[in-house]
Structures are given as structure tokens and as C-alpha cells.
């Protein structure tokens, strides 16, 4: 060592800065080499100096330089002593130092804990080194286990994903040593048996262990020195990210230049000034882009373009840091020569920012996202300012298109797709909301960013509309719609208020500040972009108005999917505002129910959501039947959560593959968009109850046939099976308790049970809804009562009923009359006395059963006939229209009989049709029996044909007519 430490100190310090801020490793190594060359030092020594300087620098940022110097000498000496073996402690301190970036007082404690862990770890590394020296594999193995354990602790303490470089370094060292040992066969032979054994097991362990850190190790091997830097860099990336744009000003870079002597001076200055370290940050870039540093005037379009191409080409390549790339590109935007070029580079910045998060599952870091939005704003600014620039992603664009300067008059084409970027930003926003735990502050904070995106979307849309690209504008409009549609007016207002507030504080900080700084710091970028597009959102007073504007734009210009989605959002929003008829009409007019099966899953989910909301809306408006029909389908499979994408359900019988599960996770709705499932279930079950209870009461004999809500029936059956019914706990229990009361006609109890549900507080106009519900329950209680007990009465006075059910006379009159008209109740009014007089004409149980049997028989006969047709090669095509005609003119009986005889000639073992028809007594054979039925129920059967015998409802109505059917048959027989 030929030089005094003091003289290289300054040089080293400048290197340290680069080490700290410079993330691109090769520059570091280059500088290191430079030092080695100049001062005849070993690389390690230089490195140690650098590290020492770094630790000095970072631990005492405000101290004066003299003290530093003295300290420094000591350090150097230390360093000299063990120069060929850089002590891990240094790295540690380096690590700590980087932490002090976010120095708040409270973090101190954590840091000391970290320190301790790191010290332990480095001690272990030392042990390992010693063990290596004496070739002691047994103790090496122990140390290895120890360090792994310590690693866990360290990771816990630092709470980071990142493995400390110290550890990686140890791994690499170990691996190398192991390879060496394995290579040396003689030595291996000489080893004691226990030692050899340890060596072998070590080999296995290391192999397994290293696999986890493979890329880190590789990275380390590629750039051993930079590894340490990197983790520091990445640790305080967040700050850098936000700061870099503010602090990196090319003027500084240019001023400071690359000469080491200058650096020295400047650094001293920096240390003295308060803002010193901020400025130093900026110097990171100066080494990176030496070519730009020298002189601003020397920078030409070509150089920038070349550099730009170079950076872009590195994209996705191994060893290219994603963050670095963003930074480099951001820097390039500053030095871009023409607006078009700046735009071009900005597009790359945005896509590089999208690249920051590699996986599909994770989301983009929030600060990157924010910056991305800001970049988009700048892009828009440029586009608005220079209206001759056209963004296009369809045509191959000439390389030198962006050379044309701001004063160029013709159109300049730049490759890019605003809509795709915007959609990606939106998708990232959505993803981040999916990932963040909704019960944390973070989530709320994240939600606050929504207005920012809305503004951006609005601006993009405006721009596109001005450009006349309505198709793209409609896509953007859809994105906006999808952020608005699920917000009730209250939430919308809150968002609006937030946006207005943040105009001064929040957004001001985000968007307003940045250009201001840019301007204040001398001649920053070559292309100064004024802030043209508004950064502040302008929301209309009413969410409906906004929706209307957007939706009508989409309806006009959007493609099929966009339109369908917008329609669904529109329906949802209308339903949210309690406009049931509007949203129902929209749904029916759009015929979305028919085509929704063919759409993508996310649209299907949206459809489900819209249906659910529609059901809730119908219920709020007191439309029970409608509400039920909207919701019943959601509840048929018991997969509501999955259908609404509000949580992943594990199915016991159907194992999902991890792939499926991941897909499902990716389509989950963020928490704030959820429709409350309990409320939904309550509404569904209550609707079903109001419909089913009177229905069950009306069809006691044949409860199974006329099922309105299968899901409800299932729940009812389950609850009836219970030997002991406890007090209601969940929604189902409540509704079942209410059902039991309602079946007895006890409306008050039913209502009380229902009101005790706590989901009602989620409703906006809770009082009105509950009032409505009470009336409904009373009405249905009345109907149930009449169905159940009318056979016990000869007559029933209106007064009595009004007293029993607390309904007005007019209401009761209308309900009872309706029942009479529908032939549900065989009774008539006795006006003078105000009584209902019942006629006991209902079928006895035997009769009812007989009806049921006849129906079953007709089904059987029908399918028999079809089977025969299939067997003899079907004359179905010919028969069908014929029969339908028969059906209309009423000679069905005879002609059907004739048909039967036709068929009979094919049937084996069948008696003649006429004898068969007279009854089963004659034949005693099953076919004869069926024939009798067939002949008898020809009318019934033809009825089936007419309606396509598809739905249960049809069958039900068939049954209602069965009374008439019997008399008809009698006529035929006679």
C-alpha cells in the first residue's frame, strides 16, 4: 500500500455514493476496477474502503468532516488488517445504514434487534470460515444448520421477503468450498469417516437449500459486489421511487460531471448542506448515463434514441432489474429531445412499470401504480399539447418518426395504446384491492386512489372523444362505469367529497408538486409539458347522471361485450336506486338472459350481481314474486358465493385443481363491492316463505308437486326433521321460525322473528321496507289461515278476520275475493251479513290421491308412447301437428283413441283397444291398464304436447284442470 489513506478517502466516498445509489452493477464494478488500477489495491480492499465509507457516511449524515476523517483513519487501518477478508459486520452496518433512510424515532428498537440478528449471523459465517480453513465438515455442518435457523429469525425481524446478502454470500462461499472439496479426491480419502460423512450430507443439504435461492446466488455470482448494494437499493426503493422523479434533475448531473476531483469538492459541500443527500441521489444517474452528463447541448435525439433502444432491449432479460429499468427510462424522459420522443419513452416507462410486478397473482406496488397514473397524465398532457401526435398501435411505425420536433406540422405517429394502458391500470387497481386485506387501513387508503383513476379515465375519454375515436372512448367509459355502478348515492357523494378535498391536499401533493419542482430546478427537461389536462375530478352531482352520460356513450359506440357489461352495470345501478321497473325493463329489453351463457365468466358474474341487486330492489319495493324469481336461481346450486365471486368455497365432493382455484381467486370481487350475503339470503328466504307457506297450505295432499322454491323446501325439510328447535341463530333459523308461526297464521310472531334479524340495518329505508313486510306477512298469514282451516268453517265473518289479522276490511275483501276468483277457495260472499260462506267441494283425500295417480299415469303413458315411437322409427314428426290440431277441436278423445289402436297393432301382447279401455278388470295386464289410462287421459296428454311438457308450473296448471277433466272423460265414455 503506497498511499496514505486520507488521499483516497474522498475518491472512495464518491464511489460510495455511487455504490449506494447506483443500482446498475457494472458501473460499480467498472469503478472498482478503476480504483484497483489506480491505487494498486486489491479489489477487496477497495471494496472494504467503500463499504467503510458507506457506513460512515450513512451512520453520521450530519457530522462534520473532520471527525469523519479521524474516524476514518482508524477504519482504514482496520480495513487494512483484514483487507482480504471483508468482515460481514460491515455489510451489516451497510444494511442498517440503508434503513436509516426511513429514520423515525420509533424504528430504532427494531433496528437494534435487526442488528443483533445480523451480528449473530455474521458470527456464524465467521465460524464457517474457520471451519473451512481446517477442513472441518462436521462443525461446518452445524454452522450451516445454525445459519439457516438464524436466517429465519432475520427474515422475521426485517419482515422482508429479501434474503440478506450476507447469507447468500455464505452460501456461495460454501458451495465453492464444497465443490473444491469434492474435486480433491485425495483429500477426501484422507478424511476421517465422520468428516467424510458430514461432507456428503452437507453436499445434499446444500444442494437442496441452494435451490431456493438459486437466482439470488446466480445474481450474486454474476455481480458479487453489487449484491449488497442491491438489497439496500431495493429496500428503500419506495422512497427512491417517489423521490427520484423529484430529485433527479439533469442540471445537477450535468454540473457535477464525472470528474472525481469535482466530486470530492461537491461531496464536502453536500455534507454540509442540509439537502445534501437529496442531491446526491440525483448523482446516481450521472454514471449511468455518462454520455448525457457531459453537456446538455451535446445530447441529441440520436443519443437518446440509442440509449432508449438499448434500455428497452434489455427488458425482460435476465439480470435486468425491473426497477432500474423504470428509473432509467424515467431519466430518459427528462432528456428526450422531441415531444414525440418523450411520449415514446413515456409509453415505455408505463409498460416497464407494469412489468415491475412479474406474477399474475400479485398486484403492482401501490406507489408504482400512482406513478404510473402520473405518467399517464403526462402522456395526456403531451398529447393534448401537441395535437399532431397520433397514438396508434396498429401500424408499423417508422423508426425515426419521433425525430420530428415540436414544430413539425404533419402528424407524428407514436406507437402506443392508451386504452390498453388505462385498462391495465384499472386491472392493477382491482387486483390490489383483491389482495389487500379489506379490514386494514391500507385498504381504505387504497380506495382513496379511485378518484385519481377516475380523473385519468375521464381525461383519456375526453381526449379520445376529441380525436373521434369513440370506440375506444366507450371502452374507457365502461371502465368508469364499472367503478361507479355499485356505489349507492351516499357512497358516491362521499367519493365526490373526498375528491374535492384531496384537490388541495392529496392530489395537490401528487400531481401538482411534481411539475412545479421540475420547473423550479433550472432547465430540467428539454420538453416541458404544461399541465393541461385537469388533475381534479369533476363529478356530476348525481351518480345517475354520470351513469347516464357514460352508458349512453357506450350504447352508441361500444362493441357487444362492452355494451352488455354497461347494460348490466346500468341495471345494477338502477336497481340500487330502487328503480325496479326501469332496471327490469332494461334487462328484458336487452335479452341478456338468453345470451349470458355464452359470455365470459366475469360478465356472467356481473350478470349474477345485477340479478341479485335486482332481487333486492324488488323486495324493497314490495314485489315478492319478482324478487323471488330474481334470486331463486342464484340459490339453486348452493353456490352463491361462487356465483357472485365473493369468496372461494371448498367443495367437498368436487376437488378443484390449484389452477382452477387460482383462476377463481383472480375473479373475486373486492370487498367493498360485495353484496351482503346475509341480506341476500334473508331476502331470498323471506320471499320464498311468503310464496311457499300459502302454497303448501293450499296443496296439503300433494305438497311435492307444486314447488315454488326448492331451496326453501330443502331448508324447511331440514328444519322439520329437527327434534328440538332452539332459538333462531342464523338467517335460516329466523326464517324457519317465522315460517312455523306463519303456518299457524300467527303473523305477529312471524314478523317479530323476522325483524329481529340484524341484516335490516343494511337497508336504507328500513322502516318502509319493514312496514311493507309486515303487510305482506299479514296477507299471507290470512291466506294460509283460510287454506288450512276453511274446511272447519261453514262461514266466517269479515269482522272476525279483520280482528284476527289486523287488516282493513277492504284488504281482506280483496284478498279473499281474489282467492275465490282463482278458485283457490270454494266460497262466496254473503254481502248482507259480511260473511264468507264456504262450500265443501274440495276433493277428499282419496279423490286427491286419485287425481295424482291419474297424472302419474298420464306421464307414464306419454313416455311409453314415446318409447314406442322411438322403437318403430318415429312417426312423431307427422303425428305431432295432427295431434295438436286434435287438441284444439275437441274431438281429442276419439281421435286419440284411434291413435291408440294404431299403436296397438305394434304392441305385443296387447288386447284390443276397446276392451282395454273399459278398465283394468278385463285384462289384468299392465299394458291394458296403461291403455285405459291412455284413453282416459288423452286430453291431458295432448295438453302436454301443446305446452312442451317442460316446466313444473305447466304440470301444475294441468292438475288444476283435472276436476274438469274427469267430467269430460265421463262424457266420452258414455
Amino acid at each position, binding site marked *: 500500500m503506497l498511499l496514505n489513506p486520507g488521499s483516497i478517502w474522498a475518491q472512495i466516498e464518491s464511489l460510495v455514493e455511487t455504490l449506494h445509489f447506483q443500482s446498475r452493477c457494472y458501473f460499480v464494478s467498472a469503478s472498482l476496477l478503476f480504483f484497483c488500477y489506480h491505487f494498486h489495491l486489491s479489489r477487496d480492499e477497495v471494496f472494504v474502503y467503500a463499504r467503510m465509507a458507506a457506513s460512515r457516511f450513512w451512520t453520521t449524515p450530519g457530522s462534520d468532516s473532520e471527525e469523519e476523517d479521524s474516524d476514518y483513519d482508524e477504519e482504514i487501518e482496520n480495513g487494512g488488517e483484514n483487507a482480504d477478508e471483508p468482515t460481514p459486520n460491515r455489510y451489516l452496518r451497510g444494511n442498517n445504514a440503508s434503513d436509516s433512510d426511513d429514520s423515525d424515532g420509533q424504528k430504532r428498537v427494531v433496528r437494534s434487534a435487526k442488528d443483533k440478528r445480523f451480528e449473530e449471523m455474521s458470527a456464524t459465517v465467521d465460524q464457517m470460515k474457520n471451519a473451512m480453513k481446517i477442513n472441518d465438515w462436521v462443525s461446518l455442518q452445524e454452522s450451516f444448520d445454525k445459519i439457516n435457523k438464524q436466517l429465519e429469525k432475520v427474515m422475521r425481524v426485517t419482515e422482508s421477503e429479501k434474503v440478506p446478502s450476507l447469507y447468500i454470500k455464505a452460501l456461495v462461499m460454501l458451495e465453492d468450498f464444497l465443490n473444491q472439496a469434492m474435486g480433491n479426491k485425495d483429500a477426501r480419502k484422507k478424511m476421517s469417516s465422520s468428516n467424510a460423512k458430514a461432507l456428503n450430507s452437507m453436499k445434499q443439504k446444500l444442494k437442496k437449500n441452494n435451490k431456493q435461492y438459486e437466482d439470488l446466488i446466480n445474481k450474486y455470482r454474476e455481480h458479487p459486489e453489487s449484491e449488497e448494494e442491491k438489497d439496500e437499493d431495493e429496500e428503500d426503493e419506495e422512497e427512491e421511487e417517489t423521490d427520484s422523479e423529484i430529485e433527479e434533475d439533469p442540471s445537477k448531473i450535468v454540473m457535477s460531471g464525472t470528474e472525481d476531483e469535482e466530486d470530492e469538492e461537491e461531496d464536502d459541500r453536500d455534507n454540509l448542506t442540509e439537502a445534501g443527500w437529496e442531491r446526491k441521489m440525483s448523482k446516481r444517474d450521472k454514471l449511468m448515463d455518462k454520455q448525457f452528463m457531459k453537456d446538455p447541448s451535446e445530447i441529441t435525439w440520436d443519443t437518446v434514441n440509442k440509449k432508449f433502444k438499448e434500455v428497452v432491449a434489455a427488458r425482460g432479460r435476465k439480470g435486468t432489474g425491473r426497477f432500474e429499468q423504470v428509473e432509467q427510462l424515467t431519466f430518459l424522459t427528462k432528456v428526450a429531445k422531441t415531444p414525440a420522443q418523450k411520449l415514446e419513452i413515456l409509453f415505455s416507462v408505463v409498460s416497464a412499470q407494469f412489468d415491475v410486478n412479474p406474477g399474475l397473482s400479485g398486484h403492482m406496488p401501490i406507489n408504482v401504480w400512482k406513478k404510473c397514473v402520473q405518467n399517464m397524465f403526462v402522456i395526456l398532457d403531451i398529447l393534448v399539447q401537441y395535437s399532431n401526435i397520433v397514438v396508434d398501435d396498429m401500424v408499423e411505425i417508422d423508426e425515426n418518426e419521433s425525430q420530428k420536433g415540436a414544430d413539425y406540422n404533419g402528424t407524428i405517429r407514436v406507437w402506443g395504446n392508451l386504452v390498453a394502458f388505462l385498462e391495465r391500470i384499472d386491472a392493477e387497481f382491482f387486483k390490489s384491492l383483491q389482495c389487500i386485506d379489506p379490514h386494514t387501513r391500507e385498504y381504505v387508503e387504497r380506495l382513496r386512489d379511485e378518484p385519481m383513476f377516475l380523473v385519468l379515465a375521464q381525461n383519456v375519454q375526453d381526449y379520445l372523444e376529441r380525436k373521434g375515436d369513440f370506440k375506444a372512448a366507450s371502452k374507457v367509459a365502461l371502465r368508469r362505469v364499472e367503478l361507479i355502478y355499485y356505489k349507492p348515492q351516499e357512497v358516491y357523494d362521499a367519493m365526490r367529497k373526498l375528491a374535492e378535498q384531496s384537490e388541495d391536499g392529496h392530489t395537490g401533493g401528487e400531481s401538482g408538486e411534481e411539475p412545479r419542482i421540475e420547473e423550479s430546478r433550472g432547465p430540467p427537461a428539454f420538453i416541458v409539458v404544461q399541465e393541461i389536462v385537469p388533475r381534479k375530478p369533476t363529478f356530476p352531482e348525481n351518480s345517475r347522471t354520470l351513469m347516464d352520460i357514460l352508458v349512453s356513450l357506450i350504447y352508441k359506440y361500444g362493441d357487444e361485450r362492452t355494451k352488455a357489461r354497461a347494460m348490466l352495470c346500468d341495471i345494477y345501478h338502477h336497481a340500487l336506486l330502487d328503480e325496479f321497473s326501469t332496471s327490469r325493463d332494461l334487462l328484458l329489453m336487452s335479452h341478456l338472459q338468453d345470451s349470458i351463457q355464452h359470455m365470459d365468466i366475469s360478465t356472467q358474474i356481473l350478470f349474477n350481481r345485477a340479478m341479485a341487486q335486482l332481487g333486492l330492489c324488488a323486495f324493497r319495493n314490495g314485489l315478492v314474486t319478482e324478487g323471488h324469481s330474481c334470486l331463486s336461481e342464484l340459490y339453486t346450486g348452493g353456490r352463491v358465493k361462487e356465483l357472485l365471486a365473493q369468496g372461494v368455497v371448498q367443495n367437498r365432493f368436487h376437488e378443484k385443481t390449484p389452477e382452477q382455484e387460482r383462476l377463481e381467486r383472480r375473479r373475486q370481487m373486492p370487498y367493498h363491492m360485495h353484496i351482503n350475503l346475509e341480506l341476500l339470503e334473508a331476502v331470498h328466504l323471506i320471499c320464498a316463505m311468503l310464496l311457499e307457506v300459502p302454497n303448501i297450505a293450499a296443496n296439503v295432499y300433494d305438497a311435492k308437486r307444486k314447488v315454488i322454491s326448492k331451496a326453501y323446501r330443502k331448508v324447511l325439510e331440514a328444519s322439520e326433521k329437527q327434534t328440538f328447535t332452539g332459538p333462531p341463530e342464523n338467517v335460516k333459523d329466523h326464517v324457519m321460525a317465522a315460517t312455523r308461526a306463519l303456518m299457524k297464521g300467527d303473523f305477529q310472531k312471524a314478523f317479530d322473528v323476522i325483524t329481529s334479524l340484524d341484516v335490516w340495518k343494511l337497508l336504507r329505508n328500513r322502516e318502509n321496507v319493514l312496514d311493507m313486510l309486515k303487510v305482506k306477512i299479514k296477507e299471507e298469514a290470512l291466506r294460509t289461515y283460510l287454506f288450512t282451516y276453511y274446511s272447519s268453517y261453514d262461514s266466517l265473518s269479515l269482522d272476525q278476520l279483520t280482528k284476527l289479522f289486523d287488516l282493513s276490511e277492504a284488504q281482506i275483501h280483496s284478498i279473499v275475493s281474489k282467492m275465490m276468483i282463482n278458485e283457490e277457495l270454494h266460497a262466496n260472499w254473503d254481502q248482507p251479513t259480511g260473511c264468507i260462506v264456504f262450500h265443501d267441494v274440495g276433493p277428499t283425500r282419496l279423490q286427491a290421491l286419485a287425481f295424482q295417480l291419474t297424472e*302419474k299415469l298420464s306421464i307414464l303413458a306419454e313416455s311409453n308412447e314415446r318409447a314406442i315411437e322411438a322403437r318403430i322409427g318415429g312417426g312423431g314428426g307427422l303425428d305431432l301437428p295432427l295431434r295438436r290440431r286434435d287438441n284444439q277441436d275437441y274431438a281429442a278423445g276419439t281421435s286419440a283413441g284411434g291413435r291408440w289402436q294404431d299403436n296397438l297393432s305394434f304392441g305385443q301382447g296387447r288386447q284390443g283397444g276397446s276392451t282395454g279401455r273399459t278398465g283394468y278388470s278385463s285384462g289384468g295386464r*299392465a299394458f291394458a291398464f296403461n291403455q285405459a289410462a291412455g284413453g282416459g287421459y288423452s286430453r291431458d296428454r295432448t295438453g302436454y304436447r301443446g305446452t312442451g311438457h317442460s316446466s313444473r308450473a305447466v304440470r301444475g296448471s294441468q292438475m288444476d284442470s283435472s276436476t274438469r277433466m274427469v267430467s269430460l272423460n265421463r262424457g266420452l265414455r258414455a
Partner: protein
Amino acid sequence: MANMARSFLQVAATEEVASPLRVVQIEGLVILKIIKHCKEFSPALVTGQLLGLDVGSVLEVTNCFPFPIREEDEEIEAEGANYQLEMMRCLREVNVDNNTVGWYQSTLLGSYQTVELIETFMNYQENIRRCVCIIYDPSKSNQGVLALKALKLSDSFMELYRNNNFTGEKLREKNLSWVDIFEEIPIKVSNSALISAFMTELEADSPVTQCDYDRLKLSTNPFLERNVEFLIECMDDLSMDQQKFQYYYRNLSRQQAQQQAWLQKRRAENMARRAAGEDPLPEEDPSNPIFKPVPEPSRLDSFLITNQISNYCNQINGVAGQSFCRLYLMKGLHEN
């Protein structure tokens, strides 16, 4: 002479072939025991063993004992078998016929045509050449009828069942229809002369018995209702079965269409190959899944259901006929 000898031989040979079972002759004691057992446990269904002798075309049932109520557990099943053996041993010791001739079981409204019954039959008939099942219906007996029935499986059915082959084709071949599954054998009740004498002694003076009163009961509705209910269930089952067949036929026709298409393609290919001078490919490809035969669903279920339906219908028929008589009688009485 030779002729004669052969005919003797023939006679001997034919006598080897057991004469068909004509009558089941049951002791009064057995009937009473069966009734007692079944009635006590009604509506649970119970079974018991029949003991007796096989004499030519007559099967004499001379004694019986009940089985303990069956449980699902296998262990207990084994115990049941032990019980059975033990019981028989005890009975032999007291010189009772200990030759198993079948079993009896109670039923509810004649719903006994099940696969289980057939399986039990097969089990019994493996060991005992002649056996019967006596079915007693307590609910029907309430109406003043002795609802006893002796059943056996028909031979042709048994053969078919052994091969487990209930496709439509086989059934047609055997000319077996649903009526031919079970054979009902007339029951003859016999009592020893002593008992008969004693019974005459016991007989009350009044010509009317409790049974006669039972027969005059006018409430037939519950019985009819239950029958109709069961009928409805049967119809459902039958519909299900029919659906199964429809499904099968649909599959079959689809497969045939596929096969045809494949064959045509293959033929066209062969033509081309022949034209090119190559060997034609075979027209059968067993490895192809479309040539795998679709299994035809068994018709046993539908046969049994049909049997059951006819049983219910007969019951309804009978009850209805009797009820009409009673109603007319009542009407006549009222007019008087």
C-alpha cells in the same frame, strides 16, 4: 319286452324328476303362530322359519319359529344364523320336524315383490329343492280375511336369474313376462282329527264371529288411500325405470349412428387403399370405444314394480267390490 323295459326305465326316470308342487298344506298351529308373530310386531316386518316335510306334490308345513328382528350389523346376522341352527337342534331334540321348507314374512299391503325376496329365494333354493315363502298381511287381515299367500319363484325365472340376464331379448326368448316371476301355490289348512274335534267343541253357539263383524266394516277409505299412495309411488318408480330405458335407447341409437359413420368412413378408406393397391383395413375395430356395447339395464326392476302394481290393483279391486256389496247391503237395511 324291451319296449316295456324301456318304458319302465322311462317311468323310473320321470319319477326321478320331482312332481311339481301343487299344494302347501299348513298345520293350524303354524298359521296361528305366524299370525301371532306378525300381528305383534306390525307394522314392523318380521320373518320366521318354516319347518315341515316335502311329500310328493304336497309340501307339508308342520311347525315354524320366528327369527329375532333383523339388524343391519353383520355380527348380529351371524348370531341370527346361530340362533337358527340352535333352534333347529332344540326342535329336533323334542322330535319336531326340523326340515326347513321355507320361511314366512309379514308384509304391508302386499308390497313384498322386492329384489331381496328374490335373493332370499335363490339362497333357499340352492339348498332346499322345494321351498315356499308364506306371506301374511296383517293389515288386510283386519278386514276379516285370512291374508295368507304361499309363493315360489317360477323355474324359468330362476334360471334366468341365475344367469343374471334380464335383457329384452332373453326375456322374449324365454317368453317370460312379469306375471311369470312368482307362482302362487294354493294353501290347504289341515288339522289333526283331535284338534278338529276340539275346535268343534270350542265353537260358540252364536253363528256370528268377530271375523264376520270385521267384514262388515264400512270404512274402506284408509285402506284404499294407502293403496293409491303406494300405487303412486310405484308409478314414480316405473317412470324412473322408463327413463333409464329411454336413456339407454338414446345412447344405443347414437352409438349405432356413430358405428355407421365409422364404417362408412372405413369403407371409403378401404376403397381408396384398394385403389392404391394396399391391403384393406379390417371393418371391425374392437379397440374403438364406439364398438363397446352399451350395457342394457336390467328389466327385473320394472317387472317387480309391475307385479307390485298389479298386486295393488287387485287389492283395490277386491276391496272396492266388497265395499260395494256392503254399501248395497246397508242401503237395503236402511230401506227396510
